[in-house]
C-alpha cells in the first residue's frame, strides 16, 4: 500500500524509504517517522482493541501521553508489549503487532464484552465475584486476566543489555521545547555545565509541530539552529531520546536514554537503554503541556484524536489522519489546528466550537456554540453528529476529528516529592505549586505559560535566575497569543463517553464511583482504574476530576488531584537491572586457590560473594558424599588442606589495641602474650553472640583478628563503630587484610610434617617451640614472607598458614606436591563442616542472632572481671533462666536414620506442638568417623540431659526420628589431638 495520507513538507527524509510490518502486513515509511505517523500515512487508523470492552481503538495523541495506540513491538524474546506507537522511532524492518485482539484486529471475538457494558461498569468485578471465596483465585481471576489486559509478554528472558550511569551538572533542563532550548542557550552561554534532556529523538518540542516563525526562522529551523549552537558548547550535554522519569532527593533525577531502540539491531556489547542517575545542582522543568480531549458519545473511534496531535502529524510528519477532518474545540488553539490543516490542503468539514463567541474563518465553516454529540463508523470514524445551538443536529462527513479541551501543564515531576499543584482559572488547569523538589524551578507551558514567546522568555528568565545572571539574552519574536478558553469537560447526556481510554473508564463510571461513595480522587482511581497503567492518566486525570467536582458540587481544586509518582513513562525492568544480571547479578570473590581448584574439578558453592570449593571429586566418585567422606577420613588419618582465606582478617594496631579488643571481645585479651592466638567471642550490645574468631598477637601493639566468612564485613563495621564512636580516645587503627593473605588450614596428624617441608629451617615449628595457639611471622620455600597460626577448627593437630595472595596458588600446588608422601587431600567446605560438627564447634547455624554464650556452652568465656560490649545484657533474667537452650550433640538411635537440620526436638511422650517444643536442630552431617549421622542442636537444659532419648520431628514433612542426646564434642573431647 502506498502512503496515501502523506502530504508535502515535514521533517521526514523522503530520499530513503523504510519497510515495516504491522499486524502481518507490509508498509513503507521514511526516516523521521514514528510508527504512529507511518501507520497514518498508510491510512491505518485501527491499531488495537481496548482493555475491557475490546472496542476498536486508534491513536489519540502524537506523544508519550498516548493511552490507546499501543502495540507489541518486535518479535521473539525482544517482543515488548504496550509500546506506544507514538514514541516508536521508525527503522527499517520494524515489526509491530496489534494487541488484545482475537482472532484478528478487525474482528475481535471479545468485542462481545461491549454489548454487556451495562454489566461491566466500574466495580463490576468487586461486586460480582464475591462468592464462593475459594473460586476467586482458581476460577474468576484467571478468566478475567485472560480477557482483560493489553499486550502479552514473550515469557522469555530479555536478551538485550542495559547500562546504568551517573552524570553531574550545574543545571539539568528537562524538556527541549522553546522554554528548554532558550534556558539551555542562556545557561550554556554563561558557561554553566548543562544537561538538556528530551524524550523525543528530535529536540525542539512543539516547535517542530508548528508553522509560525520564531525570529527570522520557521519554528523547526529556529529549534535546529539552537540545537546546533548548543551542540558546539563543550559545557552542554544534549540528551535526546532521554526521558527524565523521576525527581528524587538531593537534586537527583532518574533518566532513561533509549540508545538502541531506534536501531534495527544492536551492535554487540551496546546497551539498548541506559538508566542515568543525574546529580544536578539545580533543575529546570520545561516539560511542556498536554492537550486534553473532551468526552462525548463514542469519542473513542479510531480517527478521533487531540487537535494538537493532528497538527503534529500534518506539520512535522507530513501526514493527515484523513483527507477530511473536523475539529471540536473549546479554545482558540483548536482553530490553529484547523488553519494549519487547511493550509496543507486538508479539507476541514467544520470547526465545532462550544463557545458562542468563537472566531470565524474565511476558509472553512465554524459552528459556534455547537457540540459533538455522537460519532459513527464501525472500525474508524465516518461521521460526526453535531448539536447546534438552535437544537437541530447536523452530520459531518469526516475521517478524523481533532478535539481540543485546553492544555494541562505537565506538572508530574513537580509532584514526585508530594508537591501539590495549584489550580489556574484562566487555563482551567493545574500548574506547579510552591513546594517543588529542592533545587527545581519550572518554565514554559509546564508552568502555565502557554504562548511561544512566553515560553522562550520564561526559559531564559528561569535559567538566569538559577545562575544569578543579571542580563537576559535577546529573545526572538514569536507567537504570543493569549489564552482564550471556555472550560468544557464533557457533553451532557451522553451514555458512553470515554474519559480514560486506556482503562475504558466513562463519564458514567466516574459518576457511579461518586454515587457509591468512592468520592476521594484516590478512591476514584482505585475504584474505576482511571489514571492507571502505562499512560498514568496524562490525558484523563483532570477530566475525571472535573466530572467528580461537578457531581460533588465542588470546585476542581476543592476536589483535589491525584499524586504523581515516578516513573513519568514506563521503564523496562532491564533498565533498572542494568548489567547486574545472570552471573553478574552480584560481584564474585575468588579465593587465591580458585584457579587451581577449578583445574582439580572442584565443585563450588557460593558463600556470600565468595565462591568456595565445596568438595574435590576424584575419578570414580559418583556421589558428593563419597568425596566428602574421603576428604574427612584422609584429613583425620593424615593431612588435608583447605583454603580459609575467606575468613575475615582485620589488622588491629595501636598502643591501645589490646585494651580495645578487651572491650570488643567478651573474653579477656589484655594479657595475651605476643606470639599467641586466642579464640574470642564477640557479643552484640544486647548480649547475643555476634561472631566468633581468633585474635593473634603479632606484637605488643599489633593483632590480627579473624572473623567468620559471613560476618567479615559486619564485624569490621562494628569494630569501626566501636573505635570511632564508643572509644574515640583509644589509640587504635583498623584495616581489612582479608584479600591480602592467602590463608590455608593444614590439618591432620601429619600436618606438621608437611609444613616442615616448606617452612624454612630457621623456624622451629615443633610442639615445644610452636605449641597449640602459637603464632608468628615465618618464611617459606626459601624466603617468602608468611604467617603461621597453630589453630584448629577440625579438632586435629592443625595450622593455618598465610602468604601474600599472589603466591597462594603456588603455595597450594607446592603443598599438594610435598604432601604426596602423606596422601594429602584438599578438602572443601562440606568436609570442613563435617569435621567441625564432629568437633562441636558452633558456626553461623548456631550463632544465629538469637543465641547467647550460655546457649552455646561458652558462658564461662564472658569475663566478669572486665566490662565488654554485651557482657551486661547477656545476664538478663530470661537469658539465664534454668531451662535456657544449651548446645548438645544428637545421634539417631538407629544410625541409618538422618538428623535433619531445622527439625524440632520433642519429649518421647506427649503432644507434638509448639507448647511442648524442647529445642531444635541447627546442624547435621554424616560422620564417616562415627559411621553415623550426627547433629548439633539447642535443647532446653541440654547440658543436663545427656543420654536422654527424644523425638526429632518435622510435622510439615511428617518426619519423626528417635535421637539420643550426647555431648556436642563427638571427636576427641579432651582436645588431645590438637595439642599433639
Amino acid at each position: 500500500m502506498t502512503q496515501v495520507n502523506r502530504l508535502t513538507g515535514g521533517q521526514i527524509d523522503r530520499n530513503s524509504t523504510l519497510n515495516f510490518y504491522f499486524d502481518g502486513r507490509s508498509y513503507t515509511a521514511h526516516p523521521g517517522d514514528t510508527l504512529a505517523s507511518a501507520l497514518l500515512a498508510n491510512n491505518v487508523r485501527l491499531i488495537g482493541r481496548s482493555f475491557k470492552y475490546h472496542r476498536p481503538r486508534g491513536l489519540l495523541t502524537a506523544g508519550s501521553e498516548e493511552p490507546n495506540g499501543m502495540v507489541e513491538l518486535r518479535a521473539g524474546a525482544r517482543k515488548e508489549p504496550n509500546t506506544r506507537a507514538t514514541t516508536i522511532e521508525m527503522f527499517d524492518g520494524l515489526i509491530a503487532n496489534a494487541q488484545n485482539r482475537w482472532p484478528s484486529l478487525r474482528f475481535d471475538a471479545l468485542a462481545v464484552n461491549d454489548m454487556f457494558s451495562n454489566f461491566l461498569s466500574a466495580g463490576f468485578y468487586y461486586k460480582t465475584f464475591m462468592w464462593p471465596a475459594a473460586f476467586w483465585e482458581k476460577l474468576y481471576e484467571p478468566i478475567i486476566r485472560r480477557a482483560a489486559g493489553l499486550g502479552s509478554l514473550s515469557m522469555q528472558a530479555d536478551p538485550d543489555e542495559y547500562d546504568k550511569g551517573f552524570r553531574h551538572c550545574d543545571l539539568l533542563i528537562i524538556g527541549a521545547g522553546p522554554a528548554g532550548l532558550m534556558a539551555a542557550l542562556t545557561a550554556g552561554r554563561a558557561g554553566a555545565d548543562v544537561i538538556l534532556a528530551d524524550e523525543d529523538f528530535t529536540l525542539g518540542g512543539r516547535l517542530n509541530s508548528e508553522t509560525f516563525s520564531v525570529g527570522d526562522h520557521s519554528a523547526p529551523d529556529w529549534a535546529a539552529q539552537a540545537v546546533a549552537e548548543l551542540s558546539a558548547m563543550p559545557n552542554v550535554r544534549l540528551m535526546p531520546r532521554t526521558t527524565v522519569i523521576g525527581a528524587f532527593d538531593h537534586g537527583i533525577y532518574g533518566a532513561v536514554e533509549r540508545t538502541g531502540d531506534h536501531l534495527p539491531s544492536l551492535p554487540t556489547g551496546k546497551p539498548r537503554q541506559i538508566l542515568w542517575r543525574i546529580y544536578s545542582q539545580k533543575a529546570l522543568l520545561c516539560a511542556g503541556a498536554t492537550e486534553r480531549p473532551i468526552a462525548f458519545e463514542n469519542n473513542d473511534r479510531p480517527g478521533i484524536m487531540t487537535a494538537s496531535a493532528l497538527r503534529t502529524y500534518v506539520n512535522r510528519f507530513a501526514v493527515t489522519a484523513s483527507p477530511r477532518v473536523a475539529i471540536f474545540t473549546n479554545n482558540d488553539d483548536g482553530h490553529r489546528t484547523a488553519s494549519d490543516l487547511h493550509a496543507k490542503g486538508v479539507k476541514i468539514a467544520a470547526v465545532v466550537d462550544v463557545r458562542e463567541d468563537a472566531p470565524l474563518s474565511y476558509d472553512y465553516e465554524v459552528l459556534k456554540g455547537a457540540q459533538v454529540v455522537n460519532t459513527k463508523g464501525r472500525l474508524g470514524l465516518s461521521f460526526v453528529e453535531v448539536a447546534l445551538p438552535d437544537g437541530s443536529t447536523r452530520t459531518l462527513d469526516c475521517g478524523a476529528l481533532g478535539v481540543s479541551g485546553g492544555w494541562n501543564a505537565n506538572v508530574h515531576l513537580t509532584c514526585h516529592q508530594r508537591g501539590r499543584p495549584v489550580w489556574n482559572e484562566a487555563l482551567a488547569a493545574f500548574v506547579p505549586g510552591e513546594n517543588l523538589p529542592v533545587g527545581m524551578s519550572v518554565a514554559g507551558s509546564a508552568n502555565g505559560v502557554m504562548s511561544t514567546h512566553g515560553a522562550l522568555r520564561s526559559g531564559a528568565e528561569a535559567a538566569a535566575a538559577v545562575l544569578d545572571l543579571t542580563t537576559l539574552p535577546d529573545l526572538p519574536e514569536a507567537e504570543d497569543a493569549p489564552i482564550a478558553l471556555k472550560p468544557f469537560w464533557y457533553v451532557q447526556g451522553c451514555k458512553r463517553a470515554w474519559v480514560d481510554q486506556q482503562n475504558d473508564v466513562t463519564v458514567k463510571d466516574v459518576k457511579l464511583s461518586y454515587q457509591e461513595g468512592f468520592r476521594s480522587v484516590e478512591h476514584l482511581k482505585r475504584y474505576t482504574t482511571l489514571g492507571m497503567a502505562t499512560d498514568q492518566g496524562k490525558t484523563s486525570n483532570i477530566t475525571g476530576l472535573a466530572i467528580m467536582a461537578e457531581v460533588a458540587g465542588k470546585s476542581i481544586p476543592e476536589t483535589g488531584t491525584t499524586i504523581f509518582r515516578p516513573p513519568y513513562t514506563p521503564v523496562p525492568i532491564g533498565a533498572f537491572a542494568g548489567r547486574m544480571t545472570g552471573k553478574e547479578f552480584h560481584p564474585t570473590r575468588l579465593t587465591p586457590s580458585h584457579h587451581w581448584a577449578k583445574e582439580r574439578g572442584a565443585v563450588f558453592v557460593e558463600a556470600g560473594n565468595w565462591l568456595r570449593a565445596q568438595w574435590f571429586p576424584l575419578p570414580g566418585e559418583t556421589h558428593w558424599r563419597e568425596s566428602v567422606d574421603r576428604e574427612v577420613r584422609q584429613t583425620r588419618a593424615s593431612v588435608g588442606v583447605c583454603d580459609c582465606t575467606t575468613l575475615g582478617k582485620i589488622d588491629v594496631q595501636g598502643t591501645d589495641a589490646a585494651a580495645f579488643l578487651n572491650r570488643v571481645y567478651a573474653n579477656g585479651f589484655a594479657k595475651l602474650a605476643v606470639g599467641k592466638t586466642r579464640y574470642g567471642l564477640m557479643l552484640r550490645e544486647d548480649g547475643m553472640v555476634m561472631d566468633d574468631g581468633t585474635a593473634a598477637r603479632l606484637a605488643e601493639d599489633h593483632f590480627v583478628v579473624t572473623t567468620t566468612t559471613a560476618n567479615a564485613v559486619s564485624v569490621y563495621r562494628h569494630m569501626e563503630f566501636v573505635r570511632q564512636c564508643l572509644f574515640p580516645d583509644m589509640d587504635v587503627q583498623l584495616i581489612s587484610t582479608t584479600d591480602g593473605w592467602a590463608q590455608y588450614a593444614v590439618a591432620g596428624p601429619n600436618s606438621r610434617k608437611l609444613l616442615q617441608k616448606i617452612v624454612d629451617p630457621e623456624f622451629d615449628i615443633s610442639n615445644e617451640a610452636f605449641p597449640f595457639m602459637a603464632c608468628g611471622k615465618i618464611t617459606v620455600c626459601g624466603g617468602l614472607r608468611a604467617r603461621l597460626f597453630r589453630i584448629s577448627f577440625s579438632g586435629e593437630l592443625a595450622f593455618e598458614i598465610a602468604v601474600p595472595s599472589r603466591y597462594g596458588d603456588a603455595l597450594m600446588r607446592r603443598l599438594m606436591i610435598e604432601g604426596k608422601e602423606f596422601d594429602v587431600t584438599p578438602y572443601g567446605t562440606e568436609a570442613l563442616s563435617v569435621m567441625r560438627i564432629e568437633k562441636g564447634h558452633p558456626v553461623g547455624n548456631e550463632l544465629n542472632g538469637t543465641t547467647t554464650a550460655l546457649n552455646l556452652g561458652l558462658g564461662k568465656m564472658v569475663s566478669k572481671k572486665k566490662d565488654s560490649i554485651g557482657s551486661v545484657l547477656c545476664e538478663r533474667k530470661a537469658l539465664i533462666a534454668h531451662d535456657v537452650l544449651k548446645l548438645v550433640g544428637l545421634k539417631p538411635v538407629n544410625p541409618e536414620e538422618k538428623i535433619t537440620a531445622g527439625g524440632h526436638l520433642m519429649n518421647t511422650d506427649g503432644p507434638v506442638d509448639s507448647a511442648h517444643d524442647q529445642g531444635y536442630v541447627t546442624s547435621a552431617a554424616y560422620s564417616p568417623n562415627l559411621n553415623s549421622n550426627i547433629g548439633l542442636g539447642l535443647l532446653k537444659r541440654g547440658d543436663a540431659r545427656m543420654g536422654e532419648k527424644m523425638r526429632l520431628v518435622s510435622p510439615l514433612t511428617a518426619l519423626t526420628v528417635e535421637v539420643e542426646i550426647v555431648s556436642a564434642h563427638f571427636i576427641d573431647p579432651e582436645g588431645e589431638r590438637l595439642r599433639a
Partner: protein
Amino acid sequence: MHDLVAITALGGAAPRVDTVGPVTFTEVPDVALTSVAARLGQEAKAREALANVIGAPAPDIQRIAGGEKTAFWSGPDQWMVEAPYNGHHDLADQVKAAVGNTASVTEQTDAWVRFDLRGDGIPSVLELLSQLDLRCLSSGTAARCSIHHVGCYLLCRDANHYSIYGPRSSAGSLHHAVLTSMRSVY
C-alpha cells in the same frame, strides 16, 4: 630467594591488557601498597614522617602526592602508599621503619588489584561505573567509590591516565564491569 611463582589477580602469569577504541585497560600487578594511619595524638608527626617517605607533603583530602613512592588520601589521617613492586615487596616494613611509632602501617599489596585506564575519553567509560562527579576528579586526585557494588579507589593521575584499586578477590568482576563499559561506549 624463594621459588614460588606469583600469579596476577586475574589468575594469569602476565598482566591482562585490553584495548577498546581509544582506551587501554591494563592489570598492574607490579605495585606495592601499604596503609599508613596516624596514631592518636601523633598526626602531625605522622604527616611529617610520611612526607619524608614520599618526598612531598602528605596529601590532603582526595589528593595524591609523591615521586617514586606516592601516597593518596584514604581517610582522616590515613593514606595509602604506592611504590613499584620491584625493590619494595616489603614496602610495609620499609615505611614502618620510616614512620616508627607515629603511625600504624599495614601491608596492603595483595589486598588490592590495580587496573589502569589510559587514553582519550576515559570519563565516558567511568560515568557508567562510578557515581563520582568526574568534573571534580582532576589530575592528582583520588576518591573512594563503588563500581558495580565493589568498593574501589579511583585515582586520576592525569586526564589520560586513571587507576582503579579494587579488592583483589573481586578482580574478575571488576575487570568484567570495566571492560563491559568500555565496549558499551566504544
